[in-house]
């Protein structure tokens, strides 16, 4: 047991905070500060995060027992709706803002901060001549914050916050050159496709919270575990009380819904279409987000929820099949791409398929291991590609490259090592991680036959990977130079800020695989042992995933088989592209339809357009029509028309009645006074008559009184 967590663990929350602060600084002040200041703040903040991450992981490694390497801290209670019904009865639902550090998140956080830091350093050189320098680093830091929140989250809801955040940053960074239409379109595509996946994720999240009454992963690592509920613990008690069985539909539903989100974020079939387009963004973005970190979020999430997946064999099969299919599918498309970044993009999709294949057969540790090694060599490949593009002043077409290894050796050598790593050449990291996956797939095979098919697909894909990667290598760095004359004179090596990260990544591409070295002599890989507490499932007596134990002979045979395929791929690439440079064009010409199919990416984008995109556009057109005709027509225009009618009536009323009344009031005195007017003849005699007449009348009226008075005097 540990006495006190120590500084790095208690200050776990600083890790996402550093890049957030620098992102905020860029938002407010970025425009006014110098490039050096931007470098200092943004790159420095990531470096600080890396240091803290390293410290936290080391603390956890050394100060905690292997089985209890959990540290959880809750910063504050975030979502507190109160009582909520769940599968186990009424619960008091609380989602908090808290961080969890366990073996799984240790691996992720080291990878993200370390590779992220190297890419930040690289970007100083790469983006030196670009506009929007501070904006780039601001977004990049915002991304780091979101990704770290995603990784370190202690509950599914906070993970989703990070999930959305990285999606946003992906959009912002893909569309960084927003004045270019293709770039902004790509950003939109990425975000929208991600969103489609997120629908599944949200449904899965809701189902999880409704079933378990909590979204917290586990209560392990908290200072006071009994005061909280966790999915892992609740699941354990549910299984122990036989509320659910192994393979219950509810687990399958949860797992599949969450996996839908993963297909979106991690670019699997059917939602992978955004990743190749995402190459419109600056190369460091492609390296960080679309190779090493963001796209791995789906893999991480599935691994995090491994307890549920292990209870849903149907879902696992789906994951494995989707992963394997994606792997081979993407690999075929990579073989004909002519843009250096597009090749790497399809390669990423393919490698992610490998990771899901691993997860699907139950080899969670192997999948995460491949994630780690892939982060190193894929980042290296992208940064190397960026270096090549930089050296060639922006050229990205590999048909216009060749023989560059003499001109830019500092780039080509690390690139070579990365290629060797990704193809799985023995001794380098890719070999260990890929073979672990294939090995586990084969081992599962003993239980069910279908896993053999998966293993075969993985094997063929390995061959294809070798083919297209060596094709890339040969086309770019070897053979005759096909560089256009005007660029040839300006070829220059990239600056130190770019080449040093390449070398560091190359180093790790080589050695990171050695963490699994012991499997060569039949023991468990230390990496898997380290990771085991995070990915273990709950106790169940109704079924579980198991692997067969094989003899070393079988193991070596499998390795030999994969090496054979790799060698075949390399040989084919050599034959087609290096030995006889025109050979590949002749072959492409002799199978034109196949070539065309591959070049057009199986027309998937076109199919999606026809099936979904255009249908939605039609719907919005129809709705727009409805809006303009019916709502605007009836409602707005109608209201206007009605108002006009009413006002006409009102005017008529006003003219005839109101004005009539007024006119009547004017006409009446005139009419009544007409007879009276006649008296004013203007002629004096008439007036005199009236005077006399008045006198007569007065006398008549009052005379009678006078008479009475006079009579009274008698």
């Amino acid at each position, binding site marked *: 047991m540990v006495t006190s967590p120590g500084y790095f663990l208690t200050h776990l929350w600083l890790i996402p905070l550093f890049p957030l602060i620098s992102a905020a600084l860029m938002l407010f002040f970025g425009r006014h500060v110098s490039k050096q200041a931007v470098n200092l703040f943004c790159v420095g903040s990531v470096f600080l995060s890396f240091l803290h991450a390293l410290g936290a992981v080391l603390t956890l490694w050394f100060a905690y027992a292997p089985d209890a390497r959990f540290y959880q801290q809750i910063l504050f209670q975030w979502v507190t709706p109160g009582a909520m019904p769940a599968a186990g009865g009424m619960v008091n639902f609380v989602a908090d803002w808290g961080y969890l550090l366990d073996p799984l998140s240790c691996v992720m956080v080291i990878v993200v901060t370390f590779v992220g830091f190297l890419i930040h350093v690289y970007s100083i050189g790469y983006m030196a001549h670009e506009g929007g320098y501070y904006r780039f680093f601001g977004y990049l830091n915002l991304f780091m914050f979101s990704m770290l929140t995603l990784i370190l989250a202690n509950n599914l809801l906070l993970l989703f916050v990070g999930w959305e955040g990285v999606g946003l940053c992906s959009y912002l960074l893909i569309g960084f050159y927003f004045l270019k239409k293709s770039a902004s379109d790509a950003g939109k595509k990425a975000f929208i496709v991600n969103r489609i996946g997120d629908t599944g994720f949200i449904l899965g999240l809701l189902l999880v919270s409704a079933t378990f009454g909590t979204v917290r992963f586990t209560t392990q690592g908290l200072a006071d575990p009994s005061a909280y509920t966790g999915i892992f613990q609740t699941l354990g008690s549910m299984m122990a009380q036989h509320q659910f069985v192994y393979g219950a539909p509810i687990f399958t539903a949860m797992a599949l819904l969450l996996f839908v989100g993963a297909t979106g974020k991690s670019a699997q079939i059917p939602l992978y279409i955004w990743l190749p387009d995402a190459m419109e963004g600056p190369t460091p973005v492609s390296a960080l987000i679309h190779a090493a970190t963001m796209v791995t979020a789906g893999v991480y999430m599935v691994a995090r929820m491994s307890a549920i997946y292990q209870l849903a064999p149907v879902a696992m099969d789906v994951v494995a099949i989707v992963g394997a299919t994606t792997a081979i599918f993407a690999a075929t498309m990579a073989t004909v791409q002519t843009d250096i970044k597009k090749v790497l993009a399809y390669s990423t999709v393919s490698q992610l398929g490998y990771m899901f294949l691993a997860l699907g057969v139950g080899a969670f540790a192997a999948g995460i291991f491949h994630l780690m090694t892939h982060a190193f060599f894929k980042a290296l490949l992208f940064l190397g590609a960026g270096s090549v593009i930089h050296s060639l002043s922006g050229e990205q077409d590999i048909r216009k490259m060749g023989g560059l290894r003499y001109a830019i050796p500092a780039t080509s050598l690390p690139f070579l090592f990365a290629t060797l790593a990704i193809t799985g050449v023995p001794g380098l990291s890719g070999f260990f991680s890929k073979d672990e996956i294939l090995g586990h797939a084969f081992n599962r095979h003993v239980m069910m036959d279908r896993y053999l098919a998966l293993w075969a697909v993985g094997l063929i894909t390995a061959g294809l990977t070798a083919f297209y990667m060596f094709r890339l290598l040969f086309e770019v760095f070897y053979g005759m130079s096909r560089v256009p004359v005007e660029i040839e004179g300006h070829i220059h090596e990239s600056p130190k800020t770019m080449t040093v990260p390449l070398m560091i990544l190359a180093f790790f591409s080589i050695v990171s695989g050695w963490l699994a070295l012991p499997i060569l002599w039949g023991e468990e890989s230390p990496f898997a042992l380290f990771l085991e507490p995070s990915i273990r499932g709950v106790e169940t007596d109704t079924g579980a995933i198991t692997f067969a134990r094989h003899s070393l002979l079988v193991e070596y045979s499998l390795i030999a088989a994969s090496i054979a395929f790799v060698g075949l791929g390399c040989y084919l690439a050599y034959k087609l592209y290096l030995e006889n440079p025109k050979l590949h064009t002749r072959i492409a010409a002799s199978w034109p339809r196949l070539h065309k199919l591959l070049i057009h990416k199986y027309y998937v984008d076109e199919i999606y357009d026809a099936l979904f995109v255009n249908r939605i556009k039609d719907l919005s057109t129809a709705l727009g029509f409805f809006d303009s005709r019916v709502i605007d027509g009836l409602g707005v225009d109608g209201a206007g028309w009605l108002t006009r009618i009413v006002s006409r009536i009102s005017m008529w009323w006003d003219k005839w009645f109101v004005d009539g009344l007024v006119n009547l009031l004017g006409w009446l005195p005139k009419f009544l006074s007409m007879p009276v007017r006649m008296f004013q*003849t203007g002629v*004096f005699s008439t007036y*005199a008559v009236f005077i006399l007449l008045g006198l007569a009348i007065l006398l008549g009226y009052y005379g009678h009184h006078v008479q009475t008075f006079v009579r009274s005097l008698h």
Partner: protein
Amino acid sequence: MMPIGHYLFLSLLLLLIGAIGVITRRNVIIVLMSIELILNAVNINLVAFSRYYGDVAGQVFALFIIADAAAEAAVGLGIMIAFFRNRETVLADEMDLLKW
């Protein structure tokens, strides 16, 4: 002494004759003269009462009326002359500027 009634009757007759003259005649000068007749009739009335009441105030009043009649005749004829200069008529019927 005559009974005062006789004087009153005389006054009444003269007044009415003057009134008829005012109404009937079209020549404005005759109308003015008829007005003088009316005033005169009033004078007779006043003096008669003055004699019969022994109060000389009646005669004083009658004197004032004579003075007033003079002033009025002068001004009236002046207006008449001015009007005649403009309109070349002395006929009351044609002096209808105050017509509605």
